[in-house]
């Protein structure tokens, strides 16, 4: 059966081929053909990924070496791809959600002119390629290539409408903040090269990083994992590098769903889950991850409560949910993190696409203050969005319930009670802000004009079908890992066990578990009811005090600008205008003036022409030469 996975290169190669085809022929392709190429390549990849998944489920894994990428000195880095259980899961998420979003985009982007339409799909295909490379890489360098590649696509797609400079600024901000994280990632790789001499994850002959962890002392392990985590804070939008993600909503909404909710931003979780062997041996780093995750989850949730842009609410919600995943990683509960990546991909993609459907139906209206009551006009969007809200809020038996519960339970089991408290509180906030969003935009009375109201209609099938499929997945996706409490088999945990070895913890009493679960559900319910009471007949009021601070995102962007950006620019200006002009240059020009002065004295030789000086130089050299040699 080993050779069944040998043709796995098809999975990333197809979207790459789609990208090349679309990019080169974008001026000539009719729109429907461009859409066909874009969707088709990803769909075939999805089929291949499904095939791969069943192969892996049957116990088959595979590593393929294609060519020597960098083979110098003691460093041997191959262009190697790998399929194992963790990769198989991510392949399904990426190609599955990716395909649905491609399909959705066919209708959503239809107003674009031909070549921009093809360009859009080419970028999406390129993104899928890099994302697949990221999860299929058999060493950290291939992972990093995908890592930076998805960042590039994110940059290109956020700034897709590049005549708008605000969008361009958002794109640049995303790229630069990711680069800050990537610097950490790179330093971690250099450290590994210096100490372990390889970047392979693990190899058949036990020469990979995870096989040779004994060569690292605990300081190095902590340092390397912290640097890797720094990379993750950039890509997965955690404190302190999260501020690019809300701005990234400048891109087309399907892009937000695909890149900035379902796939790319979970790359940091993938990377840490992939390196779980390493991270488990670095307790300090785990504590840092735990607290950063908890803090991010809480901070972003508070901001989400007061945002008025439908996409911004979802963006902060994404940051918050990613915080939950890191929290899980910090407790060593890697499977729960991956589980939440999966369920989150379903319900958050659903919510974003739902928001896109609303924006589409309301002709580019994104401000929820101008919505209201649209559930009557957009039934499918409303129902699927409602399911998404239930899932993210964690109502049983929807997917979010199981994944969030396993994160909370993990924190409790590891006796991180404060973190557990924060997570529980954040879960309530989550339910609150999501249902606030739902009630304000879909319920109550429409707050736009009569004429606008008449133009609102349900989105076309290409958009609603992905919504329905995702709603279905968001509803039942949790069943892949039903806890033993409900007589489940923890299938996902078992499936991932070859990659992620879970340390057994002292299981808590079933009665305690019931109690925790029951109280969580109760609290969430209260939050929803509160939201209903407050927002069923919403009227916008100018926020003040804490509300205003939240509306302005705790002024974090302003602080970054003041503390980091402005001082750096000032230093740059100082170098440019003071040091360069007077310091170094002054010295050199002084020499120049001295030469000028003396040449003015030696009037016979002075001609003012540079050529003469050069001639003199050549003569001078020769004279010097002759003097040196023969005297």
């Amino acid at each position, binding site marked *: 059966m080993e050779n069944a996975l040998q043709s796995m290169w098809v999975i990333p190669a197809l979207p790459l081929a789609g990208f090349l085809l679309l990019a080169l022929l974008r001026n000539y392709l009719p729109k429907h053909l461009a859409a066909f190429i874009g969707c088709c390549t990803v769909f075939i990849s999805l089929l291949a990924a499904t095939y791969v998944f069943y192969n892996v489920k049957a116990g088959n894994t595979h590593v393929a070496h294609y060519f020597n990428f960098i083979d110098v*000195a003691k460093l041997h880095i191959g262009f190697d791809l790998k399929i194992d259980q963790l990769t198989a899961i991510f392949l399904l998420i990426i190609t599955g959600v990716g395909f649905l979003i491609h399909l959705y985009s066919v209708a959503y982007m239809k107003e674009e002119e031909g070549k921009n339409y093809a360009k859009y799909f080419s970028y999406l295909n390129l993104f899928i390629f890099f994302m697949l490379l990221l999860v299929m890489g058999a060493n950290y360098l291939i992972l990093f*290539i995908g890592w930076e590649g998805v960042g590039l696509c994110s940059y290109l797609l956020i700034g897709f409408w590049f*005549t708008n400079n605000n969008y361009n600024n958002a794109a640049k901000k995303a790229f630069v903040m990711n680069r800050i994280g990537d*610097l950490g990632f790179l330093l971690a790789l250099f*450290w590994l090269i210096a100490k372990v001499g390889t970047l392979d994850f693990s190899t058949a002959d036990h020469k990979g990083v995870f096989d040779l962890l004994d060569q690292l002392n605990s300081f190095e392990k902590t340092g390397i994992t912290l640097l890797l985590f720094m990379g993750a804070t950039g890509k997965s939008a955690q404190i302190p590098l999260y501020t690019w993600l809300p701005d990234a909503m400048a891109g087309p909404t399907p892009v937000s769903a695909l890149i900035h909710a379902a796939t790319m931003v979970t790359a940091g979780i993938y990377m840490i889950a992939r390196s779980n062997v390493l991270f488990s041996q670095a307790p300090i780093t785990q504590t840092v991850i735990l607290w950063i995750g908890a803090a991010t989850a809480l901070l972003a949730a508070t901001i989400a409560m007061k945002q008025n842009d439908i996409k911004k609410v979802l963006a902060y919600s994404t940051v918050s949910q990613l915080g939950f995943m890191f929290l899980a990683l910090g407790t060593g509960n890697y499977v729960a993190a991956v589980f939440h990546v999966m369920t989150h991909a379903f319900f958050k993609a659903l919510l974003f696409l739902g928001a896109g459907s609303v924006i589409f139906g309301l002709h580019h209206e994104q401000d929820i203050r101008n919505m209201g009551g649209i559930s009557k006009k957009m039934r499918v969007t409303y129902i699927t969005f409602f399911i998404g809200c239930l899932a993210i809020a964690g109502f049983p038996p929807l997917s979010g319930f199981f994944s969030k519960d396993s994160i909370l339970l993990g924190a409790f089991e590891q006796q991180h009670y404060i973190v557990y408290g924060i997570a529980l509180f954040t879960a309530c906030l989550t339910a609150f802000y999501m249902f606030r969003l739902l009630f304000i935009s879909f319920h109550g009375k429409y707050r736009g004009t009569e004429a606008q109201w008449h133009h609102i209609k349900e989105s076309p099938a290409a958009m609603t079908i992905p919504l329905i499929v995702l709603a279905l997945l968001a509803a039942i996706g949790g069943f892949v890992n039903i806890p033993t409490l409900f007589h489940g088999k923890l299938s996902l945990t078992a499936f991932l066990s070859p990659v992620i070895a879970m340390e057994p913890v002292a299981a808590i009493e079933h009665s305690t578990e019931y109690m925790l679960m029951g109280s969580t559900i109760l609290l969430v319910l209260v939050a929803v009811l509160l939201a209903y009471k407050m927002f069923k007949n919403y009227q916008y009021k100018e926020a003040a005090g804490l509300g205003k601070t939240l509306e302005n995102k705790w002024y974090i962007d302003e602080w970054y600008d003041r503390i980091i950006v402005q001082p750096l620019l000032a230093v740059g200006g100082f170098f440019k205008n003071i040091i*360069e002009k007077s310091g170094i240059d002054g010295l*050199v020009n002084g020499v120049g003036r001295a030469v000028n002065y003396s040449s003015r004295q030696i009037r016979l030789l002075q001609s003012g022409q540079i050529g003469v000086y050069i001639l003199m130089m050549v003569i001078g050299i020769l004279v010097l030469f002759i003097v040196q040699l023969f005297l």
Partner: protein
Amino acid sequence: MLGTYITFPELLIWLPLIAGILSFFIQKEATAKNWALFASIGTLMISLASLMYSDGSQKSFDTSNVSYVWLPSIGSSFAVGLDGIGRLLTLLNAIAFPLIFIVTYNKQYKNAAAFYGLMLLSQAGLMGVFCAMDVLLFYFFWELALIPVYFLSSRWGGEKRIAATFKFFIYTFAGSLILLVGILYFYQLTAPVIDRAGNTLAEHSFSLDAFLKVSLTGAQQNWLFWLFFIAFAIKMPIFPFHTWQPDAYEQAPAATTMVLSGIMVKMGVFAILRWLIPLFPLAVARWDNLVIGLSIFGMIYASLIAIKQDNIKRLVAYSSIAHIGLMCAAIFTRTEIGIQGTIIQMFSHGINIIGLWMVVELLEQQTGIKKISELGGVAQKAPVLTILLVVIALANIALPLTNAFIGEFMMFSGLFAFNKWYAAFAGISIVLAAVYTLGMIQKVFYGPVNVFTEKVKDIQWSQRLVLIIIVVIIFMVGVFPQPVFNLTKQAMVFIMTKMK
């Protein structure tokens, strides 16, 4: 075979040299243009052929390659050879010139025959620098490469060309002079040249072998090192020897700027590898922290200035200083991976920065504007130019799968092995590079069209072809760098043994 009569290094030097001299006698402008283009393509063919004939066993620094009697009485000979590094850099030199000539083909030059003649002479000088196995010959070619640039800048440059050329002249002249003193001092320590019969032909020798055989004490190396290093440091340039460079790049004619930044700065880096390290291994180790410190400070310094630049040419110039600083630092780490990274980066940086200058030149030809803040919206008017620029710019910030990533990854890796904190500090430039490069793209190419960019047209097919060639090289080296490593493997072994 060919080698019986004439060898590749000779061909690479003589062809541009003779073509350059002949060019001065051409009357018509168009003829001079075509002549130069034709000659440079010929040189490229020879360079490509030299790659085909290269065999892995080719020993580095093999002075037996070609050696003619030149100045026997002072012990200097016309000794040239091509090791892996030489092959790579002569290739860069050979690729660059035809591309430059094609892109600037539309430009009108007063006295074009002289312009193209000087350009070709400069190319010959560069070839000589990369091939010379005799110190005096090396010095001769070093000057042959530089002197035409003075004339090119002062006669065909921009408004402030005289001041800029003067500064450039002072810097490089000072460097050359110090270098000459160093060479002559060293020369006096070499053994006499004796023929088979036992007659003394010359008191001393300029050959590389003779220089390598001199064993200097650590103390001697420590000061003699500086006589060589300062000349190279000015040429690269690294902080604080760099201030000639932004002015020179801004004021020199575009074609000359491309040669200066793409190839000529590599003379400095190359000279460190070929001359400084083998001759002064102890001093290189002695001064490593100082040089690396200067280099990486310069990286951050230049990057911060680049962020504040509104002049697109000066932005590219400062960006180049930052990149060169990393190369210099990586060499002085004396790690194999760092030096190998530098070698591949010399080639990659040459290709990328020439591409960047080409885009700048094509923009300036159409708009006449150098100020970033006055441009905007070019992407709508010239989509092909924009796409090609974006790829080149991404290579400039070393995105994976582009050529520069390979070099930077390895150089930083070497720097990390030398000292973690240096690598972390220097790494800030990775972030800053993204800030100024993307900032430039955004302001020039994205955003709305304005009055200055309204009439911009997309580039012609010949210019497209040139930029596409550059983009193809970017990806080829970025995805399959291994052939380059194989080419330079032997030369690396030699450098590494010299440092032990």
